[in-house]
């Protein structure tokens, strides 16, 4: 018990004095996961819309597959991206392994299924009467799609929040493709909150771990607050 309290106190000190290592790690976490979320949104939302509005054989199976991928273990994604980006792999010549870009790629791939699936759910949640109303008002196909997405915007925004949450809190892929590197420059390091927590814990630095954990929670909370505020406007 004493250890935990000691840890929390030390954590507060690290945060309040803006310990540079801790700050760098936190900033990197946010930047990487935020970028991954944005990229994933730009892919998942149109993709989800295309799947939802489209009619093609195997549509139901595709949606089932997407929902199954929700539970994709992060280490599997990490392993896959690792194999693809490794020097001996098909994309090795990009030399992206152990860079922040690799982590963004991994996190994007990781959260794509859940964001696509939740977008589809969001769109199906739009009342059929609304859809009839839009068509009866003479919407062209494009106007119709745009309006339905607008109606579902809050649910889609929630999907984005879920995506970010999953991205910033995952460890498996981040360690595998990032390598948890602490380099002298911000851009070359790949240590983020989750991988740092993992490392510090295994080295027995409890207070550091707790500090990083608190920050991670605060970030997740802040993002969700922003999303909720937007939703209530």
């Amino acid at each position, binding site marked *: 018990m004493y250890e935990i309290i000691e840890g929390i106190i030390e954590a507060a000190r690290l945060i309040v004095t803006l310990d540079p290592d801790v700050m760098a790690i936190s900033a990197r976490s946010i930047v990487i996961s935020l970028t991954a979320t944005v990229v994933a949104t730009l892919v998942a939302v149109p993709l989800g819309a295309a799947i939802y509005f489209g009619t093609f054989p195997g549509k139901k199976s595709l949606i089932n597959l997407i929902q199954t991928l929700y539970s994709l273990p992060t280490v599997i994604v990490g392993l896959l991206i690792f194999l693809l980006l490794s020097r001996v792999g098909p994309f090795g010549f990009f030399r992206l392994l152990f860079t922040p870009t690799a982590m963004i790629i991994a996190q994007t791939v990781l959260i794509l299924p859940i964001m696509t699936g939740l977008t589809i759910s969001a769109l199906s949640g739009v*009342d059929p*009467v*609304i859809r*009839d*109303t*839009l*068509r*009866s*008002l*003479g*919407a*062209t196909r494009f*106007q119709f799609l745009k*309006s339905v997405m*607008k*109606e579902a*915007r*809050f649910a889609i925004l929630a999907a984005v929040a879920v995506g970010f949450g999953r991205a910033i809190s995952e460890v498996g892929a981040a360690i595998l493709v990032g390598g948890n590197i602490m380099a002298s420059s911000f851009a070359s390091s790949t240590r983020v909150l989750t991988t740092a927590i993992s490392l510090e814990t295994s080295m027995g630095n409890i207070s550091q771990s707790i500090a990083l954990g608190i920050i991670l929670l605060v970030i997740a909370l802040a993002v969700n607050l922003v999303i909720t505020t937007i939703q209530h406007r």
Partner: protein
Amino acid sequence: MIELEGVRKEFDGKSVLSGVTGRVERGEIFAVIGPSGSGKSTLLRLVDLLDTPTGGTIRIKGADIRRELGKSLSVRRMMGMVFQKPAVFNTTVAENIAVGLRFRGARDAAVKPKVEEALDTVGLAGYGERRARTLSGGEMQRVALARAMVIEPEILLMDEPTANLDPVSVATIESLVLRINRDLGTTIVFSTHDMYQGQRLAHRIGVLMNGTFAQVGTPREVFTVPATREVARFVGIENIVDGVVVGEDGNAAVEAGGIRVRAAALPGPGEKVSLCIRSEDLRITPADAAKAPPGRNALPGIVTAIVPRGPFSRVTVDCGVALSSVLSWKRVDDLDLREGSRVVVSFAPESVHAVGAD
């Protein structure tokens, strides 16, 4: 304006509409009435091009909408529709109303005054900036109506528009419907399961039953001269007596349940008929009162039930067949009617309407 020829619609093998034929004239208010599930919504959705018919033809302003698919958007754009469930978009009232205009590419400067005018028309002036989802059901439906009207449609379709609303909202919407038709000449087709609403608002009524129009006519026709037994039931004729025609011409009568009923306009002897008699046409008098004038049917019987209905009472009499009429409480008291009273039910042959038994 709208022509329907043998329109059919099936869903998953189940037939909902099995050959609807009818016309709606320009500038009239046409009501589609019928029991729940009779396909009223389906029919309206087919007209609004939200669905395609499995068979038959629909012509709007002479154009076969199935054939000329390329024009479907422009055809749909001359119609407006209000649905049973008040559906408003998750934005302000003004934005809701403006949706149709924006789809047609109207600029902000043109949109604003039209929206204001529409709000005024439906009695929601000043509601523009409120979030539409916070309104009451009746208000939302008025928004939906304003939204449909602001695009100046030639045809307005309404699918049970007042079904879920309180009486005051119902009245408001009904008066709006009448005004729109009167002031703008809009052709209005609406469906309802409330036949009295149909009677109040429509120039003509189509009774949709079993997937087709069982009868199309003016409210008076439908209510007093129903075409079939089922229509008679639906429009609320309480007394329907099944029997067989006996005698001919001047002596024609119907044998039913051991009694004879004289009626005008009967088919030939041996024909099975159903006789429809409206409650208002029945007179109930105590058995010992003065005799009824000749020519009227006068059936003696015993009161079997007196059921209150508002300020009236429905009195049911067993005269060999069950007949019932509606009397005021005062009348019931004056005549000292109670269960078991001996009475005579009298009605003129002209008030008996015979329909072929089906």
